[in-house]
């Protein structure tokens, strides 16, 4: 019984990790229909940002998340203005090559700048690595990361529903032509979306840093799962991402307890099953998986 409660707690918190890792990816996909293969590298940069922020200024990433978010918003704007703007109406393959190329570039730039060492930070004081609730151990770093995932979800939902630019983003994601007819400038919307998506990814990397480690290829540890989570939850659905993350986290933890060697395989079994039964994902809009901007 105790074990089951513990596995539930671990699964939900792992779900938070997975959701965090996928939110920014899904936002950009949902609006601009761009599959960002450099997503893992932006996550890596977020982790390094948290590491350097903590090491150089002593600000821990839980408090410094707004700083990281603001910086990465600018990074996202530059990412769109400098690269993706030229590929946005091009065939998908062009976007794949552009983002994949950027991914390799960023990985190697990080390698040159910071070497391949594994960097870690400690935030929680000794003895506070976890707290006990009803006999289950709740790791504090993952709890904070989970709360961040929920907070980001709520913030994005409020932003999309109640601000003008947010509604414009929603409009473009639903129907580009109609949005244009209503006088919305899609390029401005894409620019904002990339800014927002990369800001979320940067913050995600930052708040995951205390639970993990930063090194140039750490993105590859997260990116595959992020794609699975996005597809599971539904392409373009932010709430679906949280749900997809939770589902994956719970299933993986359960399987991991019984047969650790099959842990990673469950991601893809789950994905295949879902694609067979419900190709648009748990909360996705039917047909979203087939959409492009043309």
């Amino acid at each position: 019984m105790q074990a089951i409660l513990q596995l539930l707690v671990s699964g939900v918190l792992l779900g938070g990790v997975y959701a965090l890792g996928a939110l920014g990816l899904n936002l950009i996909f949902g609006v601009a229909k761009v599959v960002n293969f450099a997503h893992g590298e932006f996550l890596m940069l977020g982790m390094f940002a948290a590491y350097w922020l903590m090491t150089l200024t002593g600000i821990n990433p839980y408090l410094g998340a707004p700083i990281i978010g603001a910086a990465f918003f600018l990074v996202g704007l530059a990412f769109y203005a400098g690269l993706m703007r030229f590929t946005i109406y091009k065939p998908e393959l062009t976007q794949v090559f552009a983002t994949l190329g950027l991914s390799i570039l960023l990985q190697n730039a990080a390698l040159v700048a910071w070497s391949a060492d594994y960097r870690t930070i400690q935030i929680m004081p000794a003895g506070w690595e976890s707290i006990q609730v009803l006999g289950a151990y709740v790791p504090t770093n993952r709890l904070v990361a989970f709360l961040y995932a929920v907070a980001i979800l709520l913030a994005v939902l409020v932003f999309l529903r109640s601000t003008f630019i947010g509604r414009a983003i929603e409009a473009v994601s639903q129907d580009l032509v109609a949005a244009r007819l209503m006088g919305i400038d899609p390029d401005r919307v894409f620019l904002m979306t990339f800014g927002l998506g990369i800001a979320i990814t940067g913050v995600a990397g930052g708040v995951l840093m205390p639970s993990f480690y930063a090194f140039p290829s750490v993105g590859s540890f997260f990116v595959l799962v992020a794609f699975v989570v996005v597809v599971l939850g539904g392409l373009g659905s932010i709430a679906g991402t949280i749900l997809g993350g939770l589902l994956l986290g719970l299933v993986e933890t359960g399987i991991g307890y019984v047969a650790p060697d099959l842990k990673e395989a469950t991601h893809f079994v789950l994905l295949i099953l879902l694609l067979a039964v419900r190709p648009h994902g748990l909360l996705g809009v039917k047909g979203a998986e087939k959409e492009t901007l043309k």
Partner: protein
Amino acid sequence: MTLSRRRFTTLAGAAGLSVASPFVRRAEAQDLAKIGVLLPLSGPLASLGNEVLRGFQFARSLVNAGGGVFGRPVEFAQVDVPGSTEATSQAQRLITSDRVKVIVGSYASAISFAASQVAERNRVVYFEQGAVADDITSRGFKYLFRFIYNSTELGRKCAEYATDRIIPGVGLDRKTAKVAILNENSNNGTAVGAGAKAWLDEKGVQVVDHTSYDFKTNDLSSVVQRYKSLNPDILIVEQYTPDAILFWRQAREAGLKLKAMIGNGGGHNVNEFAEALGDDVNGIFNTGTSVYINPKALQPETAALFKTFHEEYPKMFDGRKPSAHAGMGFNAMYTLLTDILPAAGGMDTEKIRQAALALDKPVGSSIVGWGLKFDPKTQNNTRAFPTYDQWQGRQIRSIGPDPFGIAEKITMPLPDWGQRAGVGQ
């Protein structure tokens, strides 16, 4: 561009010569020690790949400061091999475009396995400094030599320490002790796990769990929970650095209680492991290679080299302390440059091969404690052996086998989380 007949003839001649070059004795190749270096310097294995490279570079600078080899400074032709898919093409590049006669690699077994195949086909001598998979040297290759022991041997020696020292040390006996084995699922991890299991089965020790996982995982809390249910006394693990950090952090978060944990190289003898976990690394055992052994157990001239290594290495690399991987890299490169190549008298692969086979150095003649005698059949070093360490005061401290241990006291069983500052005192 149009080609004149003369220019065409020159080019064709040059092309013909370069194709024929392996068969032509070329004067300049005789007296220049140009060594092919093949390592993962980017990608997920880069951390330790670069560590090995630093060992190579330190050996080169030491040898060049002493006049080089054949009276000329040693040169490296270096390629980056992030994974096994790049191994073949990069080995080929070293051989055909850089024309090296000797390659030293490669840290990761999968890379070594593929690259050494190319070297063998081209009759280029391949020295493997630290890849441990058993099958690398079981293919009957003539030009492949390995300095280190293999994975099965590593796992077996680890389990031997568990049965002979730890089980009695924590107040258990072989009948009642419960051991679990956990390894990441690479070639190496699987072989280490199997080696440990075989020894434990042979000694009649109860193995309550033997399982594996993918090292790119983001979560091992379910595995920790599994051990909380199975309740093993001793855990034998083989992990890379990130998963080693993740596992031990999640074990702390869940308050997992063990009497002992023994790692097998990989993540358990690198400084990053200690940086991530602080005092909670103290008390963990490790089986593998160490550069923090007792120098009194070494041959006198090796003890002097050991001292130089520890004094000069940090100066060359911004105060960085050498890890076991830097030590193994150094050992292989230094032996090649100071023993094998001078004995061969040139860069002729057949002579280098003979010189390597003829080498006979006693235990204690390298900075990691090993001797050197290549088995004429497998061309494995028969005098390499794993050493044992315990983390004490966030440092890896050698504890055996005798006389290589340096720690005054070995602490077991493992104290509780947060109570490990005094391990070894």
